[in-house]
């Protein structure tokens, strides 16, 4: 019981505080552009009941799963390749860093020109937003493998691909998982921006809903809430847990 409170308590207090302040501001200002939490909640229930929010959420998550998986695969491969080869690292790293620094929204116009206002343009922007951080995380995870473990592996007879499979990849896992968590954040942001701006005919998604509902403030805020909750939930339930699990197993977690 105490443990559960330790984990959930403080963030819960933060959320409740925000909702209270929001309710207060809505009551004091009393304008249509700041609806109260109760109004937004009922707009959310309406959206669920008429099927728009579930459908958009599902579409968005499918798109995300595809783009995120590709980002991870590309990032892991490019990052590992850079870690393997000095020349590749020195030639490719500046480009990846440049892509990492460039705001992903800057890719939107050119994505539309290359792919049209299509699903592919949305996926392209998401990948461009997420894979650079995955690449750099993979690179540093592999490079930070303690030399002593590689030396130990070498004296045990591991070399080449075997060294990678048995020593380097597992040793790099904590850094790799941290990269996943970071890339998830970037993918989610990039996808929402892409969905918001690239509105393909007939396409739907949470980002699209933001454009469609822009006249209906409670519905708009309800969709925004869904976006926030999904982002946080995946970050916490998937990546934070995975990170803790990996580090705990290796004794890298300081608190019990």
């Amino acid at each position: 019981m105490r443990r559960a409170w330790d984990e959930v308590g403080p963030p819960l207090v933060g959320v409740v505080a925000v909702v209270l302040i929001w309710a207060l501001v809505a009551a004091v200002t009393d304008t249509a552009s700041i609806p109260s939490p109760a109004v937004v909640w009922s707009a959310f229930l309406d959206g669920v009941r008429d099927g728009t929010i579930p459908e958009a959420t599902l579409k968005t998550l499918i798109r995300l799963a595809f783009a995120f998986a590709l980002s991870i695969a590309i990032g892991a491969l490019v990052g590992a390749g850079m870690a393997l080869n000095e020349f590749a690292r020195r030639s490719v790293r500046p480009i990846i860093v440049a892509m990492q620094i460039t705001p992903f929204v800057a890719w939107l116009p050119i994505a539309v020109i290359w792919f049209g206002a299509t699903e592919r343009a949305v996926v392209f922007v998401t990948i461009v937003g997420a894979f650079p951080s995955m690449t750099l995380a993979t690179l540093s995870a592999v490079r930070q493998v303690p030399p002593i473990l590689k030396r130990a592996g070498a004296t045990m007879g591991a070399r080449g691909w075997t060294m990678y499979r048995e020593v380097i990849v597992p040793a790099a896992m904590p850094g790799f998982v941290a990269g996943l968590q970071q890339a998830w954040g970037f993918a989610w942001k990039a996808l929402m921006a892409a969905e918001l701006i690239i509105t393909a005919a007939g396409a739907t998604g949470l980002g699209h809903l933001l454009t469609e509902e822009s006249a209906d403030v409670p519905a708009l805020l309800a969709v925004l809430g869904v976006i926030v909750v999904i982002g946080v939930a995946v970050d916490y339930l998937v990546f934070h847990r995975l990170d803790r699990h990996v580090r705990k197993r290796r004794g890298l977690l300081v608190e019990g």
Partner: protein
Amino acid sequence: MSEAAPNVVDLASLRSAGPPKLEVRDLVQTRITTSGQSVTAVDHVTFEVATGEFVCLLGPSGCGKTSILNILAGLDRPFSGEARLDGHPISGPGPDRAVLFQEPALFPWLSVAANIELALKLVGTPADRRPELARTWLANVGLERFATVQPHELSEGMRQRAALARALATDPDVLLGDEPFGSLDAQARELLQDEVQRVWVEREGRATFLFVTHNVREAALLADRVLVMSAAPGHLIEEVRISAPRPRSLDDVLVARVVSEIHEILMREVDKGTGR
């Protein structure tokens, strides 16, 4: 004129059957300091280790003894000179030469038993034989109850014991030890020294052990032969043979005598270095 330093150790008596197990000839190793200068760490060192012999390379910190060990392990290349295994130049690391490092170097993502099983896997032991061999070796070093725990849950001494089990489980011809007990408390160190003596004796002349240490008592306790090195740039200054019966203990009169003999050699070396 200085006296001729006995840098070349005559081991004709040991050279009865074929080439020596380990051979170091005219070895020079350099090291780049933090200020970017290249300094000589190992200065024309020559010695041999016969099959089944237990040799300790003894010297002060920074005398280059670890450099020699790393070259024999195949982890580093010498600046000049040669390192041979069974008469063949050493070109890289291999499971025929297990290494005990200063730190246990266990893989933190694997359980203690899985660490040993991985070592067995890497030398091609069939999967169905690995768990049993791992269990046997853990029992051998008194860790049978800790097979399923992660390395970080063990004490430093227990981790180094697990590392010893992992090193020996694959039945290597040679065990190279790089001050493996240096960071342990006195009790854990004694336990491991006994362990090492015991496994070496059990192998009845098949296993060649070469340990690097700066601990005179440890060298006297473990070795058939102690090669004493000078301070940097390290070269061999003396060879001490120890014929005390095994298992030895630090209380043995013979061991104690060897300890004081080596101390004397080291003191002479210090005098030579400071004033004349």
